[in-house]
């Protein structure tokens, strides 16, 4: 199966700090690929480069056969690469439905329409409601986004990423700050989404990672130290030392 997303020798430094170091990543079409690593491993920097928020110092990124290394964010989004944010980045002063509808609007033609009330366009509102239903937020649709709880914000993040009907999702710690119930719901939603989308999942929640991932890549100091099936990763000694060791102790 062809890779949907792959990188070649991606590198990024911030002054003296190496955030991304000769990073090679291959994500197959249709898989859920998890990226894990200790704090400071450069996971968010990786997502920022894949989505176009940050430009890499060197290396290339390919998506669906296209070299997207130099493409701005909105072009990548149009190609079908959507991302969610680790730190909630929503339109807090607009309604929940407005938030998602904007994501739909971005992919439904241009926005140089000046006259008709966009809040009454079924073309925008229906897919938005559908995405909200997908993540279980239908009841909160008309509230201002600022009125939602943190867990609901994470769900809204996901709904917005979905609204653009992407081929691939870049999810940056969607479980961050969620309680057990909310986490379980998020895992269920992601398991459902797996069937139709390719997903790159950056996460700390190991239970979720091992429950969902088809393949896992481990990042330490911006470098890939291991990549493969979940079972192989769990048994990999290097990975244990660097990362899972502490986690296993906590879980036990």
């Amino acid at each position: 199966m062809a890779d949907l997303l792959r990188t070649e020798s991606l590198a990024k430094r911030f002054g003296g700090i190496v955030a991304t170091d000769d990073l090679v990543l291959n994500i197959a079409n249709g898989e859920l690929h998890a990226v894990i690593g200790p704090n400071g491993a450069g996971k968010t920097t990786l997502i920022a480069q894949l989505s176009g928020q940050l430009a890499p110092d060197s290396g290339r990124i390919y998506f669906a056969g296209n070299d997207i290394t130099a493409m701005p964010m909105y072009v990548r989004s149009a190609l079908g690469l959507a991302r969610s944010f680790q730190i909630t980045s929503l339109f807090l002063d607009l309604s929940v439905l407005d938030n998602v509808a904007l994501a739909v609007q971005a992919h439904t033609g241009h926005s140089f329409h000046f006259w008709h009330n966009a809040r009454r366009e079924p073309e925008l509102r229906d897919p938005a409601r559908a995405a909200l239903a997908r993540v279980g937020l239908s009841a909160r649709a008309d509230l201002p986004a600022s009125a939602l709880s943190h867990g609901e914000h994470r769900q809204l993040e996901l709904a917005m990423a979905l609204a653009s009907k992407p081929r691939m999702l870049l999810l940056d710690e969607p479980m961050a700050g969620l309680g057990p119930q909310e986490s379980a719901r998020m895992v269920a939603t992601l398991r459902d989404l797996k069937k139709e989308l390719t997903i790159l999942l950056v996460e700390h929640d190991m239970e979720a990672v091992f429950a969902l991932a088809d393949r896992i890549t481990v990042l330490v100091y911006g470098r890939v130290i291991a990549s493969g099936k979940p079972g192989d990763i769990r048994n990999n000694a290097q990975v244990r030392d660097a990362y899972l060791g502490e986690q296993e102790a906590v879980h036990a």
Partner: protein
Amino acid sequence: MNRALSLRTIVGIALLVALILLPVYVEVTGSRFLLTLFTRIVILAIAAVSLNFILGYGGMMSFGHAAYLGIGGYAVGILAFEGVTSGFVQWPVALLVSALFALVTGALSLRTRGVYFIMITLAFAQMTYYIVAGLARYGGDDGLTIQKRSQFIAPINLSNKVQFYYICLALLCASIYLIWRIVNSRFGLALQGARSNDTRMRAIGFPTYRYKLTGFVIAGTLCGLAGALIANHTDFVSPAMMYWTRSGDLIIMVVLGGMGSTFGPLFGAVALLVLEEVLSGITEYWQIILGPLLLLVVLFARGGIDGLLGKVRQR
């Protein structure tokens, strides 16, 4: 959303009705100066509507908006001076030059953010101020008197004060309606999204620059219209119209009235100019009160008049 009209909308419409009936009141009481005052208020309300569009809805704090008043005004003034008094030529020129100025300065300014954006819009406006002040032929610092108002075909006669007032009022109503429609359209929502969270907008696929620039041009053009009107109202134009402190006055109007609301700019223009009149009747040092008042509004009543009206009924 509640189907019933909110208090803000009711007050806004009531105010418009009062403005429509004003000339009748003037006729009855003979206080002609009220007509002059309110013509000025109506014209500046149009300018405030245009600024509220980019500032309140678009989040673009332009500190050079008075430049468009000057550009529109001087378009009329210069053409009139050179013998072209037809409004059919003057006003389109005013709109076109305003649009072009907004396009060029906006294209450059919008590549910056925050306080840098404020400074660069300020700088461009000051540049026009200095250019115009340097035009000796058109009066330079002293300004230019307009001998004849913009001529249209009969029965339109701008020299008739009542007629002129109604024309301005009609244009104000049209502006409020037009901006209201634009704000709720796809374009308007894109602009509001860019104000709310520009990075997110780009991440989900909006090329926000082009939408902000378009909004900027729309606002500049509308304000250019206000400039053409004010030139006709005062029969005079001068570089002082676009000095940066005048841009500050416009911003005060928008904030006082309530940023990002339909009737806010109207509330603000009426409040500020009526306040000026009333206070200057009490003391010639009325700005001593206005200054701290502005500070208090910023600190405690950020939503302006519209915001206060919105709080009256808690839903």
